[in-house]
């Protein structure tokens, strides 16, 4: 009988490390406390920073942290922020982020962050405290069924009841978090296990008994994919966050592949930076607020190469009208992402970098493409779409356009020549940042894509700044989102993190307001940001610099002042209140039914009833 389609990732032929072998390896070492075992395992796994918040159940771990210097603890002001900070740290470095929270509310507060990391494939290990094993199930003080609650929001989770297994579990958690499609892993640690004495064991070198994701793509399928690409008349490369997760060399290979083939390339929201924004072969972001040229090229292509993206509903629009004439090749490390939303013709299961390497080699080894003239025609068509200049806006009058604010922020940061990392909250400002801020390199763009978590950007920026102390880290925010984790201003102050918070303040939950305008007859139900704080005074009360800009002619100086200040800054930038984010594929519509802004031809079309159901 045939093996599983992922090429034997679970095949019986490979050697597995038995539980007994694992235990004999451990028994030689001397014993130490559970808390010490955890810290030693973290250190062995290369952890340098841990984001956390103490509490009763994790006091033994905090005591052990106090008595060592190898691992730095960053005290956040809310557990959700600890997880987002670890995400920012992980996404900007390619390493596994680490979180430490207490039992009960500590663990439940972390849940949003864990799901955020799961949906955006961010490798994390989150240690949660737990009541002692003999009290589990007794509704003890600060008890929560953490493994039960976090099961659907993590890649995997553990409850460690036996100290002899503790070191092995920590090592396995890091392996699981970073292998295959990365994700968050929770280790629930009862207090008696942290206090008890047990043996330490080093990370195993043998392959994992069951979890061995396939990294090398199938060579025959790579050849079939290249054959399809060589015969393409209207090809497109669509690259996503998987390319970021495969490391910077994967982005370099993507660049090489796209330039060698001469194909157009578009990025998902999560993939921005994997292909340089300034390159003429880059069509910009695709999807709901993607560019006209990217979406029409996706709609009209005859061969699509998806690398490390998952055909998310923000990208595809109406599924039955998605790229109707295209043969689709999908390269993904996660077998379960293939044929989930969109049926594909060739599936390449493997690491994005290794897949690009194989594709490039096969491309070079095979004959010239069949339709060189056709590719030139395709580019002409794309240039015509590009000529629409779908991101054009007019900055005139005395009110700052939000697009202009982002554009100037981008241009002025370019002038500084500093390595710049951008995080965002969620909403209109996030989409404008994706559209108007150019990313040349991977790992420079941190945003909550899958879950869409307001309050992500400030703590994520904290994590990025911890990892890159000398870099310029800017959280592009909205006045509503920023209030969701504003308490982290205190963390910035404590650790002197010079994060810049750039608020596009339109006094509305802008994206909600936009949908209410377009879909709900302009009834702005509860989307007005009433009773806003004075952000300048708020910044000052958190020991940061506060700036406010309200007029276009003040904008550049304000941005320059923000960038020049050596400490944390909140810049409150008052922008047009009723600006909508365009282009837009209305929910339930296809790529070729996208609507453009008032500065381009074509008006806003109505949304169908089926579309209204969608988010």
């Amino acid at each position, binding site marked *: 009988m*045939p093996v599983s389609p992922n090429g034997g990732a679970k095949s019986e032929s490979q050697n597995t490390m038995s539980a007994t072998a694992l235990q004999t390896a451990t028994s030689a070492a001397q014993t130490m406390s559970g808390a010490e075992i955890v810290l030693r395992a973290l250190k062995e796994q290369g952890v340098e920073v841990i984001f956390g918040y103490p509490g009763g159940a994790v006091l033994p771990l905090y005591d052990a942290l106090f008595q060592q210097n190898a691992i730095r603890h960053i005290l956040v002001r809310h557990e959700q922020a600890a997880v987002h900070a670890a995400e920012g740290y992980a996404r900007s470095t390619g390493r596994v982020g680490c979180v430490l929270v207490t039992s009960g509310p500590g663990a439940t507060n972390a849940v949003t962050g864990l799901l955020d990391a799961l949906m955006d494939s961010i490798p994390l290990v989150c240690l949660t405290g737990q009541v002692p094993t003999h009290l589990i199930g007794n509704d003890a003080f600060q008890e929560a069924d953490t493994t039960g609650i976090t099961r659907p929001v993590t890649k995997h989770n553990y409850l460690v009841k036996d100290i002899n297994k503790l070191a092995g579990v920590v090592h396995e958690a890091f392996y699981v978090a970073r292998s295959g499609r990365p994700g968050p892993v929770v280790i629930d640690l009862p207090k008696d296990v942290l206090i008890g004495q047990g043996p330490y064991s080093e990370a195993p070198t043998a392959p994992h008994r069951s979890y061995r994701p396939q990294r090398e793509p199938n060579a025959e399928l790579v050849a079939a994919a290249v054959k399809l690409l060589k015969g393409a008349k209207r090809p497109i490369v669509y690259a996503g966050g998987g390319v970021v997760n495969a490391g910077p060399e994967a982005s370099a290979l993507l660049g090489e592949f796209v330039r060698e083939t001469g194909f157009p390339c578009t990025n998902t929201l999560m993939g921005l930076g994997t292909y340089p924004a300034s390159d003429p072969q880059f069509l910009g972001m695709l999807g709901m607020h993607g560019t006209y040229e990217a979406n029409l090229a996706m709609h009209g292509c005859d061969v699509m190469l998806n690398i490390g993206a998952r055909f998310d509903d923000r990208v595809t629009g109406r599924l039955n009208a998605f790229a109707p004439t295209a043969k689709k090749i999908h390269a993904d490390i996660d077998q379960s992402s293939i044929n989930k939303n969109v*049926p594909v013709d060739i599936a390449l299961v493997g690491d994005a970098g290794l897949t690009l390497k194989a594709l490039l080699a096969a491309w070079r080894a095979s004959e010239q493409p069949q339709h060189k003239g056709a590719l030139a025609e395709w580019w002409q068509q794309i240039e015509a779409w590009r000529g629409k200049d779908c991101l054009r806006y007019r900055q005139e009058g005395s009110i700052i356009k939000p697009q202009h604010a982002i554009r100037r922020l981008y241009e002025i940061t370019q002038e500084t020549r500093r390595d710049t990392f951008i995080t965002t909250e969620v909403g209109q400002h996030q989409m404008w940042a994706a559209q108007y801020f150019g990313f040349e390199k991977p790992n420079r763009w941190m945003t909550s894509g899958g879950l869409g978590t307001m309050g992500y950007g400030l703590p994520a920026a904290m994590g990025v700044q911890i990892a890159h102390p000398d870099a310029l880290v800017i959280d592009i925010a909205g006045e509503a989102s920023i209030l969701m984790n504003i308490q982290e201003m205190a963390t910035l102050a404590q650790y002197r993190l010079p994060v810049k918070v750039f608020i596009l303040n339109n006094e509305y939950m802008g994206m909600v307001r936009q949908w209410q305008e377009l879909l709900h007859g302009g009834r702005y139900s509860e989307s007005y940001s009433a009773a806003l704080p004075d952000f300048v005074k708020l910044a000052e009360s958190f020991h940061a610099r506060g700036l406010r800009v309200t007029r276009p002619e003040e904008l550049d100086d304000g941005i320059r002042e923000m960038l020049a200040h050596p400490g944390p800054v909140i810049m409150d930038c008052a922008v047009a209140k009723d600006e909508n984010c365009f282009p837009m594929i209305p929910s339930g519509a296809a790529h070729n039914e996208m609507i453009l802004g008032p500065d381009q031809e074509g008006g806003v079309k109505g949304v169908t009833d089926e579309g209204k159901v969608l988010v």
Partner: protein
Amino acid sequence: MPAVPTMSDNNETKLRNATIAVLVDNEPGILARVVGLFSGRGYNIESLTVAPVDEERAISRITIVTSGTEMVIEQIKAQLDRLVPVRKVCDLSIEGPHLARELMLIKVVCTGEQRAEALRLADAFRARVIDATTASFVFEMTGNGDKLEAFTALMRPLGLAEVVRTGVIGIARGTYSLKA
């Protein structure tokens, strides 16, 4: 069978049944993980059975009967396969001929002629009497679902009182063996 299933042959709406065998590490929470996967993603479970099959290596075998389009069933298998404690996933219904059996215990409360008729039918269906009183029988019966349902239907007018079924377990025919 191709190395990777392609979906171009448009079977997006046709439903099929699948009997999926899964070898897993017998650890706390594994059943919750599998069941949570099905409920969280809206897949059907028609039956699910689980028991340890290798005490020494702490491996359990789960048999899940589900239904869905080809795309959904491929999804189910891929989702199961990426759970960390899952060692092997096998779709018995497409990977070759297989046997599926279920065990049923059925209680019939009856007297007189109905009692004799129940016994005759039980004999015809190769059900065993495992408990009897002057007013009742408990029959034990194994077979596929159709057979069990047919027998249950026959018992209904004869005083059917209670039914308990294990759900389906399955195994491939021939020399092929599922190993972790």
